[in-house]
């Protein structure tokens, strides 16, 4: 599904953050990327999603057989990529419902489909909101404005369920969540998983991995993947920290 070959990216001339990433994700898999602060974890997901602040200087990102390095963020979304933000942006004046409606219909437009009928959309909203214990009045509020940390993350997962991507990248989705919210979010992600899609978790702590079991755990440090293992690696990192890998 996703194959990253020797990916280098810089934020400005000479300031390289990703220094040769190789990663392969197959349908049905869950991958976790862990690593110390400043390792480039969030940069990696931003670069995959197409953030224009970064320049890819080398390598390729093959998604569903196509190199998407030159694609605009919305084109990547249309192909089935999704990024759950670590810090979702507050947008006063655009309601959650209006936002998700615009997103769904823009994705449909890109596929040559007409707008989703209001009734169908409403049913889908209701179904997914229920999964995440999202109250109805929440959907009429301005996007992320005044949301608690937990509400923001739940809203991200709600959008993921609504858009039903092929690959969902979740950037620090567990941060700022209490244990109940974490469970709800994890249940949402687990309900999304199937044989045809994949999940890439970016996380600092292994706590989330108790709820969403990864098939692979990668350690990212200084712009490179320095170790790959199974979920026991996460436990080991929890116990020993990162130093033993870095030295």
């Amino acid at each position, binding site marked *: 599904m996703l194959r990253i070959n020797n990916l280098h990216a810089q934020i400005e001339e000479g300031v390289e953050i990703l220094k040769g990433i190789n990663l392969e994700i197959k349908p049905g898999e869950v991958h976790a990327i862990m690593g110390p602060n400043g390792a480039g974890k969030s940069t990696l997901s931003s670069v995959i999603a197409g953030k224009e602040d970064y320049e890819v200087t080398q390598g390729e990102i093959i998604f569903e057989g196509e190199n998407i390095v030159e694609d605009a*963020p*919305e084109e*990547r979304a249309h192909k089935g990529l999704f*990024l759950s933000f670590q810090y979702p942006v507050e947008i006063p*004046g*655009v309601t959650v419902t209006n*936002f998700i409606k615009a*997103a769904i219909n823009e994705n449909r437009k890109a596929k040559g489909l007409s707008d989703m009928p209001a009734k169908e959309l409403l049913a889908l909203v209701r179904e997914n909101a229920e999964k995440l214990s999202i109250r109805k009045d929440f959907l009429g509020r301005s996007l992320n404005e005044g949301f608690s940390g937990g509400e923001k993350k739940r809203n991200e997962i709600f959008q993921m369920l609504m858009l039903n991507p092929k690959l969902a990248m979740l950037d620090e989705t567990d941060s700022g969540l209490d244990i109940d919210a974490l469970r709800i979010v994890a249940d949402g992600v687990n309900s999304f998983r199937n044989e045809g899609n994949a999940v890439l978790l970016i996380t600092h702590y292994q706590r989330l991995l108790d709820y969403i079991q990864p098939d692979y755990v990668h350690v990212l440090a200084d712009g490179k993947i320095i170790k790959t293992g199974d979920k026991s690696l996460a436990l080991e990192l929890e116990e020993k920290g990162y130093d033993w890998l870095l030295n």
Partner: protein
Amino acid sequence: MLNEQIINNHHTFLKTLEHSFLDGERISALQRFAEMGFPTKKDEEYKYTSLKEITEKQYNFFPSEEHTITQEQLDELHLGEENFEWITFVNGKLRKDLSNISIENVELLSFRHALNSPAHREVFDQYYNKISQKDLAFTQLNMAYANTGFFMKVPKNVVIEKPIHIFYISQNQDGNTIYNTRNLLIVEEGAKVEIIESHHNFDESFVFTNSVTEIFTYPNAKSDWHKVQNDSDTSFLVDHTFAHQEKDSLTTVNTFSFGGKLVRNNLDFIQNGSNINSFMNGITIIGNQQLVDHHTAVHHNQPHCESYQNYKGIFKDSSKGIFNGKIFVDKIAQKTNAYQQNNNILLNEGASIDTKPQLEIFADDVKCSHGCTVGQLNKEAMFYFRTRGISEKEAQALLLYAFANDAMQNIDIEPLRIKISKLLAEKLEVSMEF
């Protein structure tokens, strides 16, 4: 050009009137105008707005009354007939066949009719030209020539349910035309009314409207005035609106500026009692070579009053915006709460905005807050939208829509809010459902 025409046409103009009781005032107003002339960029109040494109043209002062405006054409301008009353002026003359007024217990007349009827003389003596500022060229020009517009007095405790939409239409004119429009609204104690005002030029030639409005709101009364400025690109509008409020009253003036070549709005609130609320909201979305200039002034003369100003501007192409907001707090006006916000987004390099808050506070126990911003769209927000599959263009439109929409919070007429939302969407080229 226009200056000379104004002076030379006055004698002829006076002869066309059926009434003469105002002649003395009109003549002295003309004299004051002649002494002042039109303001230039040397004038502090017109530093950023050149009036040359208005004043260096010739205009017809006597528009022909004939027109071919049909009900269908009017329908297109409507906000939803079932929800409103409306009065239509075409070429300066009230057209009853294009108006629909069913309200009772209210004095509602065309200004011309009111001037010509001795029965209304007393009201004129009491209210007319009482709060309009005398030292301004445009108010004096208006005083000298005013002969169209409407006059309305809502008696004590009368609540008018349906908003009244006033259409000023110009059509079928041979060459450029000038209108000196005059409105007078008196809302007595405990009464309530909402007015919508819009101007429409159907011709290719230029129309210059010089409008003066006086609003009196008495204790416990509520008056709302919405200016929908979406005229053609051969239209000029200079508006002076003076709102005088007595204690415990509430007055709102909303200004939605989307059209017109050059629009200058002057809005003065005069608070003359305690516990007054004054609201001013504005949304400006313009492009090409358009210019919209808002000058507001709130006179906090009494204690325990509040004023709220919220102006949003979006400027495309080479358009230009000006915002100047003055707040005066008299030394006895303790416990004043004055709020002013002006936020702007410039979409193209050629667009510009000059924004200037101006506060003069002489009381010591007041809360005055003001802020102005000029910026571009939030890049992080754009990226967020795009990762959800929303195209750059659509994302921009949605964000701008949300930005402007903030100034619509206190429009309580649903059809008007929908209409403004539609105009917003249209101007921003975004498809939205309402």
